[in-house]
């Protein structure tokens, strides 16, 4: 036992130990970690020693993902966008509608016709959330909890999604450039990262015009007239 503890594996020494020490990981500034260097050198070192340890590789990978998340989280500290600038023009007073009663043509038959459609689509919606069972066994205890970070991101994603829905009134298309107009480059990048998360969850679709390089964000059920290609 004593001999084992003395002869600790190479990856528990600096600089790789950072990937295997939860407490250190929590305290570090993610910008100071060069993940690409750490992982490449970690693999080289393992190959050199001839001891291929999948557990250690897995933990290293997980920790790297966590550091990425921490970086994203720093990026994603969203600030309120500045109020839009209002152009000057003559603003006429509101036109008040004269009140007229109007008989409408909708009958109970119309109501039932559409009810039929809705009930059919109701059948297609699955309310029980699919429980995803992980293929791999639970991560070992040295792994930090990712949930908190994910929750943060989810909150930001929800905010962004709500903002998008508000902008397109439920469903519609909006250009990325329009949506991020007036925002700083950094804020635009933050929004873009969140959009990628939203797209991955299927909440929005993103597609890019090859010529103009404009990115279009589509929200909600859209019937695209020309069958524009959508890809998540």
């Amino acid at each position, binding site marked *: 036992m004593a001999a084992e503890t003395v002869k600790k594996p190479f990856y528990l020494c600096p600089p790789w130990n950072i990937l295997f020490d939860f407490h250190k990981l929590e305290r570090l500034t993610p910008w100071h970690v060069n993940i690409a260097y750490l992982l490449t050198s970690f693999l080289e070192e393992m190959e050199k020693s001839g001891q291929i340890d999948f557990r250690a590789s897995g933990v290293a990978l997980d920790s790297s993902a966590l550091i990425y998340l921490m970086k994203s989280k720093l990026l994603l500290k969203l600030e309120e966008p500045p109020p839009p600038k209002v152009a000057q023009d003559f603003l006429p007073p509101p036109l008040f509608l004269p009140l007229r009663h109007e*008989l409408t*043509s*909708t009958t109970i038959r119309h109501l*039932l016709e559409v*009810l*039929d459609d*809705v009930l059919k689509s109701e059948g297609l919606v699955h309310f029980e959330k699919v429980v995803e069972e992980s293929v791999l066994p639970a991560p070992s205890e040295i792994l930090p909890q990712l949930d908190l970070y994910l929750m943060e991101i989810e909150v930001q994603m929800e905010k962004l999604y709500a903002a998008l829905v508000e902008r397109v009134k*439920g469903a519609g298309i909006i250009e990325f450039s329009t949506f991020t107009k007036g925002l700083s480059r950094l804020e635009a990048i933050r929004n873009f990262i969140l959009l990628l998360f939203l797209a991955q969850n299927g909440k929005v679709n993103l597609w890019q015009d090859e010529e103009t390089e404009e990115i279009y964000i589509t*929200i909600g059920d859209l019937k695209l007239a020309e069958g524009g290609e959508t890809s998540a």
Partner: protein
Amino acid sequence: MQKAEKPALNLSTESIKGQAAEKMEHDLALLEAALYVAGRPLNLNELCSVLKTRSKNKVRKFAKELIKAYTSRNTALEILELKDERYVLQLKADFTPYVRKFVNRPLLSTGPLKTLSYIAYRQPVSQKRVVEVRGHHVYTHIRMLKEMGLISAERSGRSTILRTTEYFADYFGLSHDVAVMKKELKHVFEDYSKQEKSQF
């Protein structure tokens, strides 16, 4: 209405009478205005709010006066008293066939109508559920349906419960009792789907 008979004399009692008649004329017109724009039956409370009075008796009297005025004019419109002291201004049924062709604006476009039909069929139903079934765009529909007085929303803990209103029932000629209404809807719906099937 008394206006035509109003004398030009300025004797004090006459003038008081004239003022009272004018006030009454205005109150009748207010009730008429409310019934006209509502296009649905209004109850005594609603009519009280128009006249800014708490006296149901007064409103009841005025409503009857208005009915009388409409009856004596003998035009295409009528004001009726319904069950539970509700009043409605409507076209006399005899005239419907002649003017049906001018009724061509739907109450709602298909999207909001679908949302409404789902709420009616599943009520009381949580807003969350309606959004799950119909998609995120229904927030606009729900808002519109609320503004039109076709559905009402009620907070219950963290969720919002939606149901149809009396106006909805009146519009489609359904019962105000939700249990009965749902049965009616189911019946009509089943009959309707049978018809549909037999047609194809």
